[in-house]
Structure formats: C-alpha cells, structure tokens
C-alpha cells in the first residue's frame, strides 16, 4: 500500500484518503447572468492532467480537507497544503 501525507496526521495508509475533486474550481454565483455554458464548465469540465495534478483530498479519519499535488503517472506525492485558514 502507498502512504499519503495528511498535513495534520502525518503519513497514513492510502485507503484512509478520499479524492474529492480538482483544486481551483470556483462555483459561479447563482444568478441569471450565468449562462448554461458557465455552469457546464463548472460542473463537468476537468483539467485531467497527465503529470502533476493539484487536487482536493480528504483524510477520512480526521475529516480534514487539504490540497495534495500528485503525479498522475507515477503516483508520487509532490506536496500537500492546508485548506484551513489559521484562526487567531
């Protein structure tokens, strides 16, 4: 089994992680100004890169969502980032 690094729990078994989607998609503000094409782009179109890919993942035991950059050919993990903003 491969190990993925949770930014909060450290390296854990890959089966504890769930792929949630590509990073960087922004949901259009619901309004009449959004065209069908805008919604279709948001809902369906995918970057689907061959190589480095920036993705949102969740570590299911701790329920933290975070960004993981991964090579989709070699499966190598290139880095993780927090999505959580630091609270003061």
């Amino acid at each position, binding site marked *: *089994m491969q190990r993925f690094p949770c930014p909060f729990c450290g390296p854990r078994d890959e089966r504890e992680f769930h*792929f949630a989607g590509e990073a960087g998609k922004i949901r259009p503000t619901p309004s009449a100004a959004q065209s*069908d094409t805008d919604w279709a782009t948001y809902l*369906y179109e*995918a970057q*689907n890169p*061959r190589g480095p*890919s920036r993705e949102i993942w969740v570590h299911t035991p701790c329920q933290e969502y975070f960004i993981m950059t991964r090579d989709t*050919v*070699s499966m190598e993990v290139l880095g993780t980032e927090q999505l959580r903003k630091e609270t003061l």
Partner: protein
Amino acid sequence: MLLGSVVYITYLDASPLIVPHWQDHMTNKYSAFSLFRESLRGHKGWQPAWRSPKPQAEYDVVIIGGGGQGLATAYYLAKNNGIKRVAVLEKGWLGGGNTGRNTTTIRSNYFHPESVALYEFSLNLYENLSRELNYNVMFSQRGLMTLIHSEPDLEMANRTVNAMQLNGIDATIISRAEVQKRAPVLNFRDDARYPIHGAVWQGRAGTARHDAVAWGYARAADRLGVDIIQNCEVTGLLTEGGICKGVETNQGTIRAARVGSAVAGNSSVVADMAGYKLPIQSYALQAFVSEPLKPIMNTVALSPATGTYFCQSDKGGVVIGGALDRVPSYGQRGNLPMQEDVLSGLLEMAPALANVKLLRHWAGIVDVTPDSSPVIGPTPLPGFFLNGGWGTGGFKAIPAGGTIFAHLLATGTHHEISQPFDPSRFTSGRLVDEGAASGIAH
C-alpha cells in the same frame, strides 16, 4: 462446406512478420482450406496481416489511435463511406492500449433507449464480425448474468428487465435454480454474505478475443488501402486559420482534411493539443487472469454488491474484473487496495476459487464522463473530431463506434445513433445517465 468456415487460426495471425516464401502462392484468405494447404507446405505462404507503410504527406482522414475504435473507424470509412486515403496513427503497437487490456465482455443490457440503440447495434455487428472480417474474433455468446442478492435488488432487476424488454433486448429474470444450473461454481451456501436469489440474464451477451478484434479490423482495413502506421506518436495538431489541417508526429507532419481522435485513456491529452477541455476524468481499471483451470464457468457473472465480475477464457484462465479505481490516474498498472476489493468480491461470489493462483494483473486507463456515456462529435476546433469517453465499456462498442465515427468523419454530421452522445449534452443538460440508470459497472 469447409471453404467458407472460420477456423481457429489466431496463433498464426499473431505474427504479422512472417515473410512469404513463394510470392506467387501467397495465402490471402483465411479458411479451413488455406490452413490445410499451408500445413502441407510448411506454412511458408502466409502473408503479413497488414503492411507497415511510411506515412504519406497527406490523407483525407487521419485517425489518432490504433486501438479497436480507431481501426474499426478506418475500416468502415473505407468500406461504408468510400474514403480510402486514410491513416491510423498508433504511438505504440496495435491494440496495445485498452483494446488488449479489457475483460472482453460484450453486452447490450442498458437502460436508456439511446444507449440500447448504440450497444445493440454493436452486438449485432459482432454477431457477424468473424465472417465480415474473414478473421476469427472468437465471439462466444455465452450469456451474462447480473446477480440478484436481495428483495430490493429483485425490484430493481424487474425495473431494469422491463426497460430492456421495452427496448427490444433479450433480457429476462432467471431463478436461483436456473443460476445454479448455469453457474454451479457460484456461492449457494446458506451462510453467504450475498445470497443469490436469481439474476438478470442476457443470453446474447458474451465474450470475444480482444487482440483478434484489433488484428481483424487492422487486416481488413489494410486490404481496403488504409495505412496503419505504428510507433507514430502525435505531438501536436496542425492548425491553419483556426482550422485543423493535420497532425505533427515523431515521423513528421501529416496533413489531413479531417482528423479524428480515438485515444482511450488520453482523450484529455489530445484535447489539450486542440486547446479545449473535456468533461472527462481518467482512471485506472484493473483486471486479473488466473492460472488455467479445467472448465468451471461457461457464462459471465456480475455481482452488483461486490462490483466484481468474472468469466473463463478458452485457455482456462479465470478473467476477473471489477470497479474503477477511486483515484484519477494515467499510470497503467494495478494497485493493492483495488486488488483486495476485487478479489475479495470474487471469493464471495465463488469461494471455490480461493486457492487459485493469479497469473497476471494489469490496468488500463479509461476516460470516464459524468454520465458514463461516450462523447462523440465535432469539437470547438473545426476539422477535428472526437470519439472518446467510453469509460470501461469501449471494447463492446468497437463495431458501432467505428461505424458512427466513420460516418461523422466522412460527412461532418452525426449518424442518428451518435447524435444523443454529442458533447453539447453537457450544456443542454440532456445527459444519457447510464451510471445512475442501470447501475451496472461500466
């Protein structure tokens, strides 16, 4: 009688490199007679199954991808549409992608009329394919059973079968006793986690030899003048004035009036060359083959509860497939979590196989759309057309996909069967959602 019959000659066909010894007595047509004649003269008269030409400077149509879909498209372009200046460009070897990696199941038991029109058309073409191509694709209509494990399963099965019968598909529900008669190796124990109460049965479904489908189409297309160019990787598209005019490859520029993409597992990569995005996510799909066994299973069984399905090949290997990997991937190899899921599903379905050893396991990359239906049609780049997004079910659709994509490339407009699968459905909202409707592993 023997002259027209199709015989087991795939092992001979497997070597396109056999050099003909007597040029004036070369064997072109495969038949029992030609096999007999060649056996008398040391098999020296077999011709290469296809040529290996250098690419010409220009074609009417260039097809990217020499898998089943691409080769079938080239064959039907030449045969149905009369377009013979066609090249198929393959970056590796023929059928070296998903066509040679799948679990060879062919069926048409879908829910929506649009899907049934497509897959039933394909099944009908498969039924006569060996004769049409003069190549034994070993299509064996051994039937497919989707198991029913509970009362809710039975209600869903009734709904599915009703829909299929309304669509004219040969689907029925068979009883537990009938399942046991057809597949005694399945788990009929009292303590089964997923007891078998019956199954949805499509008797005309079956399996075919996947390599033979690629080789048969390649040989038949080559006969009609199609250039099949292997080891030719497309590195970019040639555009002039915003119109696609050909492709850039590692063997130079090849111009074409129309370019078609039939690259399962790389549709998004080729779309990037054309400068647009697709509603596709690529995943690995794993499969497994066991050591050869005596005949124990003469049909295909699928368990919706475990996602696993299996059949037995003519060589005796148990061929096992399951659901998609959970993680997008372009790495054509298996991984342990999914292996565990699929094989534990197999052992639930057929505990007798617990001590059987696996011979190989592998993965192909499949392009999955949000509605689990293919994307076929023109693209934002004029002159460039797409046939992709078949998910895990492209093999069964090869003859139909080839026919409708050839029609699209020849005329620039949709065949009536491919119209519902135009990419515009994602904007209009008219999805053909087979993933949700029939709930079958695609």
